[in-house]
């Protein structure tokens, strides 16, 4: 196997060119899947026998929660790539993905809270999942503020990579401790997402939403990365040529 593609990936110019071609596809695919998934989930999926129609929030809550968590994983992989192979693009990815991760974590928290109102009777419950998401939001805020606090973008990126790696080592411990803390303080309550065997009519739209949100996220990351590349590489010839045209 040739590793040339790996080295090509490190070149911001190559990424800028190739991502421009893929971008419209991800935008169209993401938006259409999200529209189809939500109409399907809102209007056609059968309602939950226990929770009624408030259960339809799942089609927004679960995909954004999954994305929020895996976004941090992707950032951790990029952090390793950035620290080991000193690849510029990995730095750009972390800087671009962190605000999106925070945004989707917020969305997952918000929809969780709104879902909690009809299900538990209160807007906020110190449920293990919600609390873990809240901590994840704080971790994203830390990454974002460290990235913006250090003026030199190169050093800021390296510092952020170290922080992301420290965070990823801690996340399983935090998750475990919060789960454990939750069982200590309140007996297992009604879980939001642990459902007794969903029927296909219920989970197929969920799957559509998950795939859709990943495509949409990819499009957003590409958009943000292209912006970031333009700023970081503003002194190179190819960006100057691009601006002249």
């Amino acid at each position: 196997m040739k590793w040339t593609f790996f080295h090509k990936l490190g070149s911001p110019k190559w990424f800028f060119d190739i991502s421009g071609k893929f971008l419209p596809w991800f935008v169209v695919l993401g938006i259409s899947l999200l529209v189809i998934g939500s109409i399907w989930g809102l209007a056609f999926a059968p309602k939950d026998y226990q929770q009624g129609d408030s259960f339809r929030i799942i089609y927004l809550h679960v995909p954004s929660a999954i994305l929020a968590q895996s976004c941090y994983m992707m950032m951790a992989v990029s952090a390793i790539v950035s620290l080991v192979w000193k690849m510029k693009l990995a730095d750009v990815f972390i800087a671009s993905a962190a605000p999106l991760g925070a945004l989707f974590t917020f969305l997952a928290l918000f929809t969780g809270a709104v879902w909690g109102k009809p299900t538990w009777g209160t807007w906020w419950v110190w449920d293990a999942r919600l609390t873990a998401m809240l901590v994840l939001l704080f971790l994203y805020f830390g990454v974002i503020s460290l990235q913006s606090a250090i003026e030199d973008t190169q050093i800021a990126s390296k510092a952020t990579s170290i922080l992301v790696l420290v965070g990823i080592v801690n996340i399983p411990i935090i998750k475990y401790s919060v789960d454990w803390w939750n069982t200590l303080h309140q007996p297992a309550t009604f879980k939001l997402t642990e459902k007794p065997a969903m029927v296909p009519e219920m989970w197929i739209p969920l799957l559509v939403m998950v795939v859709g949100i990943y495509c949409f996220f990819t499009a957003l990351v590409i958009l943000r990365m292209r912006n970031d590349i333009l700023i970081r590489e503003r002194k190179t010839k190819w960006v100057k040529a691009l601006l002249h045209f």
Partner: protein
Amino acid sequence: MQFTNIDAFLSMGGHGLYVWLSYGVGLLVFIIAFMSPVLKKKRIIKELSQLQRRQSKHKMKDNTEGIN
């Protein structure tokens, strides 16, 4: 279709407020997330090309001064 008419669809079996609040905020988040980089790109291109124009003017000036 799970709902017989549009009113039933909007009320969501009494949970309309929660469902539509979630999806409304979700839509807002998606729109913000999409529009902010799109608008930012325009701003970046404008600023960078301005910067470049200014720099190339300086260079020309320097060159002419050098000739004189």
